[in-house]
């Protein structure tokens, strides 16, 4: 038998092929299961925000939101899902150069979104909305902040994959896998669509 360098237990006995489990399938299942949990994580924060959407405690509320600006950054994030699909597609064709280009593009778009969010937070801070100002502020910063952290983790994963692929260590069965990171990235995008709708659009 060959050396098993993959993450999971290779539970094969000699001549018993039925014991071999499809590593990619196992990891993908686990990712879907994990995302199910993540969905509840965001659901709890979105519910908290909905409860407090008008509880501004005399401080600023949703009138702070600059819909055109946030729409633009949301569009950037949505586009990153497209580039992620393209990266996955190129990876399927084993075109590593194309894959790298699209991964870098995705990471850059993600970083642009994050920059926009940091800018937005700065403006809100200056206008008097802080996490301790009101339950509205607490819930807003927690929800968008945790989403930002998820985007940040995604950018880190994308960067790691770019580095791995340039040294030729990015394989279909490796732990850090374009398909898995893609699943995660799309999930984070979809969550943002919900947040954008619930937090920004419904307020107006």
């Amino acid at each position, binding site marked *: 038998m060959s050396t098993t360098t993959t993450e999971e237990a290779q*539970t094969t*006995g000699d001549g018993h092929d039925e014991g071999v489990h499809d590593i990619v399938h196992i990891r993908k299942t686990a990712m879907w299961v994990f995302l199910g949990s993540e969905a509840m994580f965001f659901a709890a924060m979105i519910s908290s925000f909905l409860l407090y959407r008008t509880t501004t405690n005399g401080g600023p509320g949703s009138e702070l939101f600059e819909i055109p600006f946030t729409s633009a950054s949301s569009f950037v994030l949505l586009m990153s899902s497209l580039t992620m699909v393209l990266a996955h597609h190129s990876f399927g064709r084993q075109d590593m150069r194309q894959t790298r280009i699209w991964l870098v593009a995705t990471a850059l778009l993600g970083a642009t979104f994050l920059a926009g969010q940091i800018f937005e937070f700065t403006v809100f801070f200056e206008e008097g909305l802080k996490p301790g100002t009101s339950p509205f502020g607490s819930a807003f910063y927690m929800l968008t902040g945790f989403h930002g952290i998820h985007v940040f983790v995604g950018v880190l994963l994308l960067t790691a994959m770019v580095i791995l692929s340039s040294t030729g260590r990015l394989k279909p069965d490796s732990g850090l896998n374009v398909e898995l990171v893609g699943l995660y990235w799309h999930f984070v995008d979809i969550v943002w669509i919900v947040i954008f709708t619930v937090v920004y659009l419904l307020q107006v």
Partner: protein
Amino acid sequence: MTVEAAPGPAMTRTGPKGVWAWVTTVDHKRIGLMYAVSALFFFLTGGLEALLIRLQLAQANGTILSADAYNQLFTMHGLTMVFLVVMPIAAGFTNYFLPIMIGARDVAFPRLNAFSFWLFLFSGIFLASSFFLGGAPDGAWTGYSPLATQVKEYIRMDFFALGAQMLGIASLAAAVNFITTVFTMRAPGMSLLRMPVFVWMALVVQFLLLFSLPLIGIGLFQLYFDRNLGTVFYAAAAGADPLLWQHLFWLFGHPEVYVLILPAMGIVSDILPTFSRKPLFGYSFVVFAGIAIGFMGFGVWSHHMFTAGMGPLAEVGFGLATMLIAIPTGIKVFNWIGTMWGGDVRFDTPMLFSVGFIAMFVIGGLSGVTHAMVPSDTQQHDSYYVVAHFHYVLFGGAIFGYVAGVYYWFGKWTGRMMNEKIGKWHFWIMLLGFNLTFAPMHFLGLNGMPRRTYRYGEGLGFDTWNLVSTIGAFVIAIAVLVFIYNLVWSYFKGDVAGNDPWDGRTLEWSTPSPTPLYNFDVVPEVHGLDDWWHRKYDEDDEGRLVLREDQPEPAVLLEDASHIHLPSDSFYPVLTAFGIVIIGYGLLYVPVGFWFAGLGALVTLWGFFGWSLEPVAKETH
């Protein structure tokens, strides 16, 4: 039982020896055993807390504990018993037996599994260490805000917020792991509806954890942020709604109740057929009832809040939904009785505890129905009646079920059987002590005694039953000592178990005892429910049991198992878990502790990187 114990000395545990081998192990069986031993250790601390509580309440105006000490002890008793005893003992059984029962050699992610265990253990120690670092959490295990956010100067409730959060991460990782294992690692032929009921119940539990832990996670973050970063999620003065915490807590807390009881139900569902020598009555109904309980568990959380002021409409809805949950629970109980009906029922200790489980659980279930009557619940809520109710469910139910599991599987774990005679003493003392302790609490509650009170006055009619209850608690303590004596005695001197001492039905009994590292020398091919049983027995024309002529070859320990590839031991899971708990300690002391937390983050990163760069199975030959 019928199958004679195999002659000769007990087989020894395979695999590397020594402390380091256990610290770095990724073997699901060793991890399972470590869960079980840790749970036993925490059970003793939680029990000690309970004894102190009972001593304080033995008479009116007790003076053994101060109010402050009492509040810490009852809070920690709850946290310990729920998070550090019942959940990990269930995790222990799940770890050890779930992969074997579905014919797998390990879980899907063995190192993640080790990480879950170590993070659980470190978080448990983290919580327990609070006693020595300025006081344990003192806001009840429910941690209701704004009480939990009121005094920010003391870090007691930060221990609660961070400890529960870390335990949640550990359980979440385990949930992802087990769900993936069940869906991807089953042996050929092991369809979902051929899985033992225990596996099914464990699976439902993992889904409950998967979907409920993030909710309490958010609540705990909010609690921590309110206490340390100046947010106002629960500050009524800023217009916040304190009920938000209750909703988030019970959205987790109610499924959690089923997390605690369902694995015990699974164990009992596997023990009853073995000792009745009959298949489980209505297997698919039992399984679907379990799934139904899981689903409904998410729709009844507000029945913990009938006095909180949700409005009559919500109370009607949640009251009726709560009643409905009695139906699948009843189905399980009836099917268990149906399993024994017409059987050849043998009362070895595992069976005694299983029948005790049913008898006690029925009482707890029925008192549960009385809570679903909302008007009646406004009297019972937060009184000792509720304390009686959940101890009947979680002690008379869950703990009895898990003890049954220990007696049932001890031979598989250690190669030696538990002592039957001591076991029977254990059962009867435990049953007596349990009822002596908790039955009087029904009367105390109906008599108007609220829970979480460190003293009560004279003349309220609480004295007699409190004294009885305290006496009962010490009877339970005796039972626990008998149990520990039995564990130790049996570990060294018990009868040799052999592969299949109870004439079992499920796949773990086809393996040698203790189970070798590789579980199966040949991955089994499964042809039906209770596959191992059907390799031994047939039914004749009347449907009666007959021994097959072609009995399966008993599995023996392979002398050379090097052709079976298993994941290698790894130091990184324990390192990563250690890093996380360092972060936890750092976050207690805001803001200076952030430096310490940063150190912990570095350790965690080191663990993660080592983990992902390390090959899973090193070349062994």
